[in-house]
């Protein structure tokens, strides 16, 4: 079980609990605004972009090469950017805070 907090662009804070699947799926299933996950999680649409809170970045780690390539061309990318479809939910992510990029 991991508690994951999303902060949307209108500053709404939503804390969700997940046990499996990706962070994108958790967000989409709970209608977190700004996370669309159009491609269903294959790293092709970049509609699930989040900024990991800097103090939590060690927990998620940085993006792999292909994910990094996707982020490279997104205008809202910063050094803490991740595509949430590539973040698998596990105990290791418990307590992290993600700011929705869009």
């Amino acid at each position, binding site marked *: 079980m991991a508690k994951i907090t999303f902060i949307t662009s209108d500053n709404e804070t939503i804390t969700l609990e997940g046990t499996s699947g990706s962070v994108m799926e958790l967000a989409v299933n709970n209608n977190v605004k700004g996370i*669309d996950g*159009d*491609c*269903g*999680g*294959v*790293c*092709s*649409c970049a509609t699930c972009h989040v900024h990991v809170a800097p103090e939590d970045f060690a927990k998620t780690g940085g993006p*792999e090469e*292909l*994910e990094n*390539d*996707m982020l490279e*061309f997104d205008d809202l990318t910063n050094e803490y950017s991740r595509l949430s479809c*590539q973040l698998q939910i596990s105990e290791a992510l418990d307590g992290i805070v993600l700011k929705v990029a869009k």
Partner: protein
Amino acid sequence: MKVSEFPDAFKKEREEKGYDSIEDQNDPAMMILGHKDVRKCAHQWQTFQSGAKPGRIVIPSEVNIRETRQIPFEVDPPEHKSYRNLLEAWFKRPLNEDYKNQLTTQIESIVDEVLNKDAIEVVGDFSLPLQSRALTLLLNIPYSEADLWISWGTHVFRSEDTALDADKANILYNYIDQEIDKAIENPSESLYSQLLNSKVNGKKLTKEEVKGVMILTFAGGRDTVINAVTNSIAYFSEHPNSLKALKENPAMINKAVEELVRYFTPLTQMGRVATKDAEVCEHAVKADSRIALNWASANRDERVFENPNEVVLDRKVNPHLSFGFGIHNCLGATHARQILRILLATLSKKVTSIDVLEAKENIEDLGNFKRKVGFDSLKVQFNK
């Protein structure tokens, strides 16, 4: 060659130099072939514009057959965003439960229909009606309207012998004009009425702007969806185990859709016009000349996709460009994805195998390149 095999037409040039030139009605375009270069150019909307003369970013160019600007894809920022915002919510409706149920009913009924026949010509008797009926949901208009579009045939905008046919295009344009006038007289819950009631940047949309959105809605999703559906049938005919795998593991359907869309890339390319002198692949691009973002080539780039010429139905990381890339990515992608997801679910539930009886490939003539993009006809038998 197997009917479901779609070769990579661009491999040699992509690997050797990364670009090539394509002639098109005295307005050549520099075709960009590598995954990274395509994405980079798609991202640079200031340098490579979409808001050029209407029809010019399409390849083959449509400047000689239309003047109406298609919205939002032939509009650049900052105006682009206002139009896109207006349309985005509407074009995401396919995610609604009710929409999904209606689409499922449509697709299940057409699959049931073909299961009871000995032979079916997939393009005209399956994919075309499927696409047309699904479009009534996207426009939110009566189902019966699809009959008219089906009667137009698969190529509303093209005739058999020419890629550009003004007379045929005019049938669509006149039809849309009439439908807009009807919607003004009798407002309804349709996309036409929705647009006529909308404002962008404080100004009501003009009839010409509404027409621009509607032409794009009709044109963008016609042959692309028809090809995606037909080609998927071809794939399953030669891979019956895949149907079985999807039936046993429906969670795989999403990945399968993305992979089929990558492999088939229904729209080969889309152009842009350079706003200033630029450089791509260490090659000069002159101001006011065209480039072409070749999605099909990018989707087979070995530097990005392992075994790019194989369909790997459960490919996990799949950054394909079949719906474009950047701010102009496909507005109809949600609708298209939903059609394909429901189609795969329905086929895997109801169909055991598909036998191909006859196939006539549709080969796109792109100057130095010949690319298989789909079928002119595909006769098959569906088996329960």
